């Protein structure tokens, strides 16, 4: 019952019912029109017949005289057909015909009339009734009455009961049709509703399971490729994204816990050590100094986390201004030049001048700093040769491309996918990181920031899908995590420098 009620409540059934109602109204109108038209047609045919007969009688009377007419009327009257005939004298008294009684007004004024009639059986007596004399036949007649030249009255007509029977047939078939249509529509509507309901039910069941916590559930997609499948595909894509986000959140939480707990533990240990009874003044002072150091590191981590959260929440539109990217990149390269030089690393820059961008100066600066700090850390070729870093900026169509490349060993192939995830820390030392980051801004200008490690192994101009494995994003937490927001920065595979090749 509840299932029936459910089906009944579906929009499909309601829609079907509405359509049935509309259909019936139109069918009735159509049938009525057809019935009306055909009854008019039949009536016209009957009057035509009557008129033709009347003319025939007139011709017979004119050509052959009254006796021939009386003979013709008598012959036709004895036929069992629908014809109605009456011949009376000038006073209207019955002489001949298959009806004996005709209303007076029909005889007084010639014209067309409809009246109830009775007539005896033309072949004598009808079958005797169970009780009493045989009932005379009767009905409704349409007649034309005329006055002959000698004053006699002739009435010629047709029984209309036949015509009525015809209308009844039309009405009957109409009713059968309508009932059939209603039944058929109800069945079709019900089936459609059930089918739709079943599809919706599967989606509903899946979402219920998901709501109860099983995020790996997916809405089944059929091969029909209809609108429900499109919906299911979209829902599944949404679920994938949600699942990934949740997974990311979990990873972030884990990493944050790691990044914060480790220094907190050290902090606590040092404070404890300072409080120990045998601690000297000197050790206490050192412990306190390192407590400050640890808290500073904590603050840095925390700031980086905040920045990431901010950036992931959306670009701070207020901070976007037209800035000279060329000068930022050049500034940062210059800022780190001496540091690199002290490490025996040469920075080669090729920076196009006057490239502007609607962006946040601090964020681009910070991103550049992160990239360069990583490059300096890892620009140490395996063959022991001198380290080199290339800083490149150019305008390519509607992109601004910023590349920071080093000639270190690069990220191990196994880590290249992983390093694109958020907050990844590569444990092994001596890795070059190869981030390719795209700055997405609201203006036609976008920037792409790239750092490709291990230029000796020249990255192919790979397809989009294959390319991301060539790339990695900065993975030195916390500071370098800054610019690695999925929302603002995405991977731009197509762009590689060919430095040091």
């Amino acid at each position: 019952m509840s299932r029936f009620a459910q089906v009944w409540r579906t929009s499909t059934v309601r829609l079907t019912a509405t359509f049935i109602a509309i259909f019936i109204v139109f069918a009735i109108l159509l049938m009525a029109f057809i019935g009306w038209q055909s009854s008019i047609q039949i009536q016209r045919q009957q009057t035509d017949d009557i008129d033709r007969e009347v003319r025939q009688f007139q011709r017979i009377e004119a050509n052959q005289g009254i006796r021939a007419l009386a003979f013709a009327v008598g012959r036709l009257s004895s036929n069992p057909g629908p014809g109605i005939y009456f011949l009376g004298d000038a006073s209207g008294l019955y002489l001949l015909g298959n009806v004996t009684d005709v209303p007076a007004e029909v005889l007084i004024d010639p014209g067309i009339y409809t009246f109830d009639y009775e007539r005896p059986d033309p072949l004598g007596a009808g079958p005797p009734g169970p009780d009493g004399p045989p009932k005379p036949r009767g009905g409704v007649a349409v007649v034309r009455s005329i006055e002959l030249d000698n004053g006699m009255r002739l009435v010629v007509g047709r029984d209309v009961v036949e015509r009525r029977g015809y209308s009844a047939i039309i009405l009957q078939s109409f009713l059968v049709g309508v009932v059939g249509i209603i039944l058929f529509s109800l069945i079709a509507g019900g089936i459609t509703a059930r089918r739709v309901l079943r599809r919706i039910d599967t989606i509903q069941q899946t979402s219920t399971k998901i709501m109860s916590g099983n995020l790996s559930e997916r809405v089944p997609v059929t091969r029909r490729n209809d609108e429900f499948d499109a919906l299911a595909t979209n829902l599944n894509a949404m679920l994938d994204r949600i699942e990934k986000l949740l997974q990311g959140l979990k990873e972030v939480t884990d990493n944050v816990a790691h990044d914060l707990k480790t220094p907190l533990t050290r902090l606590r240990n040092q404070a404890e050590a300072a409080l120990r009874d045998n601690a000297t003044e000197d050790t206490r002072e050192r412990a306190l100094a390192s407590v400050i150091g640890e808290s500073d590191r904590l603050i840095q981590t925390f700031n980086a986390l905040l920045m990431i959260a901010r950036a992931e929440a959306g670009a701070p539109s207020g901070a976007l201004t037209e800035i000279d990217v060329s000068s930022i990149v050049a500034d940062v390269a210059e800022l780190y030049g001496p540091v690199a030089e002290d490490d025996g690393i040469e920075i080669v820059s090729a920076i196009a001048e006057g490239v502007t961008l609607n962006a946040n100066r601090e964020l681009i600066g910070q991103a550049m700093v992160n990239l360069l700090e990583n490059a300096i850390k890892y620009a140490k070729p395996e063959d022991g040769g001198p380290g080199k870093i290339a800083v490149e900026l150019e305008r390519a169509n509607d992109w601004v491309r910023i590349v920071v490349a080093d000639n270190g060993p690069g990220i191990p192939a196994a880590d290249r996918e992983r390093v694109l995830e958020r907050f990844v820390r590569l444990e092994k030392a001596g890795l070059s990181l190869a981030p390719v980051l795209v700055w997405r801004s609201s203006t036609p200008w976008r920037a792409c920031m790239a750092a490709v490690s291990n230029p000796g192994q020249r990255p192919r101009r790979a397809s989009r899908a294959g390319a991301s494995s060539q790339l990695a994003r900065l993975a030195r937490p916390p500071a370098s995590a800054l610019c690695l927001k999925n929302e603002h920065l995405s991977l731009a595979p197509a762009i590689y420098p060919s430095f040091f090749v």
Partner: protein
Amino acid sequence: MKILLIEDDREAASYLMQALDEAGHVTHHAADGESGYAMASGMDYDVLIIDRMLPRRDGLSIVESLRAEDDQTPVLILSALGEVDDRVTGLRAGGDDYLTKPYAFTELLARVEVLARRSSPSEAATNYSVGGLSLDRLSRKVERDGETILLQPREFRLLEYLMKNAGKVVTRTMLLENVWDYHFDPQTNVIDVHMSRLRSKIDKGHASPLLHTVRGAGYMIRD
């Protein structure tokens, strides 16, 4: 130096007052925006340290009102809001410097002392000299004991900033902010490397160094 501290966190305030006192400054304290504004406009201070979020009256509105009354006392804004936008609004409201919580006291002290100097007339000087070192801002010439020293443009700006604040401690963050215009902490010793280059150009071959490293705080140029 006379300092007014408007800060609602009593613990932070008493710590700051004690530390400023040890550094030789007289510090008054106001615990909310209204009384802070009354004190700031009623008395003459060298520097105002104003927390951004205060009970009864917002820190930025105090600064705006003071500036509207043509009170040009240097203001250091303290805030837990550290984004670029927040800094920009803080400085636009009339603040002279912006420090994000949490901060090291040495950083705050260095900034307060530099701020107090800023209000003195030496701001407009075209010429700085410390010991035998002189810097001409117009001709962009640097000499030590009559000998011309050639500096890169950035080194010149670095030295210019140090000499403008001669005798005061300048932190690494302050250098990064004022010379490079970046407001974040680099992870590496990037400022130290620049300073050691500058030092080698200025102090090499001279018996008495002018550029000093202040441990745990930053740098200072003095006789």
